[in-house]
């Protein structure tokens, strides 16, 4: 299958390992990955901070960039959530029905990584090997905006050598929330403190999630505490193989 990668601005700039892993994983599974030129950012930060009008050109750019592809994948539940639940709304608020319709069309072909693997490609065992104790944080937008359900856990359970440990209060937000982490830094930190406590309670070496943004938040807190737990994107674990270690 020919799959277009929507890399997301955060993974592109700060967490390329997650994006590279997405490419290598899909290629290993026998698919062709293309990287449409001209893609930048889905505009979610602007939309969620109250700058919807400024986001309109970004929505237009995203729709134009990805319209030619049958299947689009992103290593982020949050960015897929924005594409699916916000792009048409932004277009419609600006009175552009044509763009709204095209945005809905692109959204209907856009998948978060675990959705693509399980729902579209029909695989749960991707042949990965990752000999570590791991706990999974289901990010809010993956869980409640695009409803990935237990697909990430189903994928993780098939990974050889991986010990998956349940995270207490897993469905509670880590406190990132985009600009929320800056505008309400104290409350965000209080939420993070509880998330980190639960992560540490699992005694896992690795905290995995499907969003680099939430991982940057949890990882930033754990790093500040020198807690000895790494944050790793789901794609990186699924891309890891015995041959590579």
């Amino acid at each position, binding site marked *: 299958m020919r799959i277009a990668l929507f*890399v997301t*601005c955060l*993974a*592109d*700039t*700060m967490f*390329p390992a997650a994006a*590279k892993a997405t*490419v290598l994983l899909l290629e290993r599974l026998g698919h062709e990955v293309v*990287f449409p*030129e*001209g*893609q*930048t*950012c889905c*505009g979610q930060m*602007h939309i*969620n901070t*109250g*700058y*919807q*009008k*400024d*986001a309109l*050109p*970004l929505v237009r*750019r995203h729709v134009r960039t990805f319209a030619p592809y049958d299947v689009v994948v992103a290593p982020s539940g949050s960015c897929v959530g924005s594409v699916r639940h*916000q792009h048409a*709304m932004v277009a419609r608020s600006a009175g552009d029905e044509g763009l709204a319709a095209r945005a809905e069309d692109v959204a209907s072909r856009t998948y978060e990584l675990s959705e693509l693997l399980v729902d579209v490609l029909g695989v749960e065992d991707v042949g990965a090997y990752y000999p570590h104790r791991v706990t999974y944080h289901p990010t*809010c*937008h993956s*869980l*409640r*905006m695009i409803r990935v359900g237990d697909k990430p856990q189903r994928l993780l359970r098939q990974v050889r050598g991986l010990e998956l440990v349940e995270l207490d209060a897993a469905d*509670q*937000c880590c*406190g990132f*929330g*985009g*600009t*929320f*982490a*800056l*505008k*309400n*830094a*104290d*409350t*965000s*930190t*209080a*939420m*993070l403190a509880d998330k980190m406590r639960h992560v540490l309670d699992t005694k896992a070496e690795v905290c995995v999630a499907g969003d680099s943004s939430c991982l*940057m*938040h949890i*990882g*930033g*807190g754990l*790093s*500040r505490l020198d807690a000895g737990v790494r944050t790793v994107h789901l794609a990186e674990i699924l891309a890891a193989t015995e041959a590579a270690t």
Partner: protein
Amino acid sequence: MTTFLGMPTTAPRGVGNLRGDESFPAAAHKALGNAQLRRNLGHATATIRAKSGAVIGELPDWQELRTAGSALKADTMARLPELLLQLEENVTAAGGVVHWAADANEANRIVAELVRATGENRVIKVKSMATQEIGLNEALEAAGIEPVETDLAELIVQLGHDKPSHILVPAIHRNRSEIREIFLREMPGVDPALTDEPVILAGAARRYLRETFLSTRVAVSGANFAVAETGTLAVLESEGNGRMCLTLPETLITVMGVEKLVPTWQDLEVFLQLLPRASTGERMNPYTSMWTGVTPGDGPQNFHLVLLDNGRSAVLADEVGRQALHCIRCSACLNVCPVYERTGGHAYGSVYPGPIGAVLSPQLTGVEDNASLPYASSLCGACFDACPVKIDIPSILVHLRNEVPHPRTEKALMRAAAYTMDHPKLYEAAQHAAKLSKVAGRRLPPPLSGWTASRDLPEPPSETFRDWWAKR
């Protein structure tokens, strides 16, 4: 020919409890430092969540009930003017008197005058959000009338000279030893040997209130629902104090927000299932009192209904925001909110805290008076999933953020960011600049200082994804 009467007005300043003294982040900062509050809230919200989750899980048709509740409220809002007139007609026909209050000042004046006309100087009150919203207690006290709260938690708040911090559990921020101290200090005739056993504390409140119930001739209540078709009012409660207030006095005055309406009697079937399970985690609330006007020889012989707008018409005028009027005040969104659980209700500055407060208060007052509230959420979406009438709170929050006056620097930064993102060459240049500037580490200037106060920023990678892709 039509006459333009002007846009509906928002709730007036200087009266009521919809505006805080400081912004949410400032108030939250103080609350977060209160370890006792954090413990009380964490325990209380976790308990209610578990209880509610269990009884909701018993219903195979919970999702269908939510859909029905949402549809009924949407229909009600679409026909609100005609339904309100129908309610007025039916209440009047049953012997009640209907008053229309445009705002808090008018409602307070109407109630104070009605009480004064009875010659009484004390009223007993059923727990009511509408009267808290308009500051009725303060207005009555100013008019020389003593309001006595009869809901146990509201009584704790009133005796403690405090403010409610939760819609359903107004004293959720207090634990039993604090309640014991308040009773010992403030409750007339309290036993000095009072312990902090819940049953002993409830017994003390019961003895104090019983005398008041039997000797007070005017009651003030709110309403959970009003049925347009029959003119019936309904109050749902757990303690029986409401039933006492609604049946013992000679005069009953009910203050109700105009959005509490349902079209028909049958519609209550849906809401009476949704509300208790979502709010107290009960299959059915212990007391459901319903009354239609006046029944000769039975219950209050004078009944007044005050219909309150106080900004609700302005909310109704907003296509996205009007969903907030569907709220049945169950507090499920508070109990699941990770922000509320840590800051408590007082940080929101309004009698409506939590996620619903963050969308309702700014709309009732106008967003400029509650500009920080639409941002008091990480948009995690737990509130939307928990809402028994499916109010899409995250979408309303995002919508309201567009209407808030933005700080000048932020506006410039956001505009520059959007421009950069819409020009791939500039975007790539910015990526490389970020790498060179070494925007990482432990202490950065604003606006990133909020981040680095408690979190590290990662080192930028040696190459971006697109650099890697280009080299393949």
